């Protein structure tokens, strides 16, 4: 084929800048979406605990929607669909303020929140009822028993799955390229279209994704062993 693998040309000058901006955007998108996901996930968990059935149904519907509709479709609905429902000034504001980044972050964050809520809920459920009883038997009310005994244990258990959600969120940022967000995959295609060094460009992106992903995976397994309470 006579193809020469030329990594240097892809990592020089403005192309290097594009890659770096792409990485920064990916990380920024991950961070913003993650904060939204955690906040919303906690809110959903709390709402679920309120003994008012319609609220429970609402949370269940939220979770089912975000788990059964593809993330790309959710992004489209937010980016193409929602602004069309808003009044013109709102639309103009969105367009002027990095609309695609914001809406992608919202879509990614709210979707991840569904899984976060489920992970926290599993964590809480895995704590034996006896722990709650023991706390109540000492004289703690519902809040005290949950806050001092159940939740500290539940969150320990939830950390590895939550780190896994972080990994998924990080990988899902790549979908934002479909609406023009300048994250890593988008930038890689840009570099490719300018240099025609497809292999090299995508090799760089692949390496970056793998390094960060493996980092998150390592954090996950480290936390899993670190947080485990020893038994004889």
């Amino acid at each position, binding site marked *: 084929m006579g193809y020469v693998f030329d990594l240097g040309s892809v990592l020089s000058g403005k192309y290097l800048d594009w890659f770096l901006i792409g990485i920064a955007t990916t990380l920024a998108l991950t961070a913003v979406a993650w904060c939204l996901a955690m906040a919303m996930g906690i809110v959903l968990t709390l709402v679920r605990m309120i003994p008012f059935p319609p609220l429970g149904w609402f949370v269940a519907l939220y979770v089912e929607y975000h788990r059964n509709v593809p993330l790309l479709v959710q992004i489209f609905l937010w980016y193409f669909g929602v602004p069309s429902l808003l009044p013109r000034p709102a639309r103009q504001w969105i367009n002027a303020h990095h609309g695609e980044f914001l809406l992608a972050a919202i879509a990614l964050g709210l979707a991840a929140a569904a899984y976060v809520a489920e992970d926290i809920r599993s964590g809480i459920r895995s704590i034996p009822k006896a*722990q709650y009883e*023991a706390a109540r038997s000492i004289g703690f*009310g519902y809040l005290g028993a949950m806050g001092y005994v159940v939740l500290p244990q539940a969150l320990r258990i939830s950390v590895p799955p939550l780190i896994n959600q972080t990994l998924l969120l990080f990988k899902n940022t790549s979908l934002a390229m479909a609406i023009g967000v300048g994250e890593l995959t988008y930038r890689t295609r840009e570099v490719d279209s300018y240099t025609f060094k497809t292999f090299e460009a995508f090799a760089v992106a692949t390496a970056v994704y793998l390094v960060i992903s493996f980092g998150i995976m390592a954090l996950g397994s480290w936390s899993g062993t670190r947080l485990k309470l020893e038994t*004889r």
Partner: protein
Amino acid sequence: MIRFENVDKWFGPLQVLADVSGEVRRGEVKVLVGPSGSGKSTLIRAVTRLEKIQGGRVLIDGADIAGRGLDINRLRQRVGFVFQAYNLFPHLTALGNITLGLTKLRGLSKAAARERAMAELARVGLAEKANEMPGLLSGGQKQRVAIARSLAMDPEVMLFDEPTSALDPEMVGEVLAAMKRLAAGGMTMICVTHEIGFAREVADEIWFMEAGRVVERGRPAELADSDACPRLAGFLRRSVRN
């Protein structure tokens, strides 16, 4: 101090407590024995509303535990409960398990709580395990910490729900010893247990339960005479044989 008046409870169609009445006066030690499923655990759990009863009343110092306006959390601080499965909090040290209630419920300072907790641990002979995580303690040690945890709240009565049933035989002794010391010190106690020797030694009265009813009551001394409490004596004989 604790009075049961015609207590009934059903789990669905099954009646687990049927017209149970009785009294436990201050300073008394009552031991509940009986075959599995006789309702003894359910009865003792009903005292602190870990189980809700459907008929009759349970009174502590004259107050109906199901009464309106009763602060169940306050009440539970006055009643110590020791579980068969110990139920120590695994994310806290032995000391932490005890100081939690002292600091958050009794409002003690960290230092005062620590001092009190260490004293309780010393009383059950586990002062050196204060900073150990529960996961690394033996069953007998865990149960003693559980007892210390309950005692630290200065309860007026201690309830024991089969405290030694989950323990290997060689650890039963240390827990029973702690309980005997408590009884000798004048604590009001209700114990559900299979340890007949303990019952004979320490109980003021033994209640024999079967199918949700208190079928016989007897003082340990009376049990030597099997005519007074035939069924109880028979049950005790069968238990010892095992």
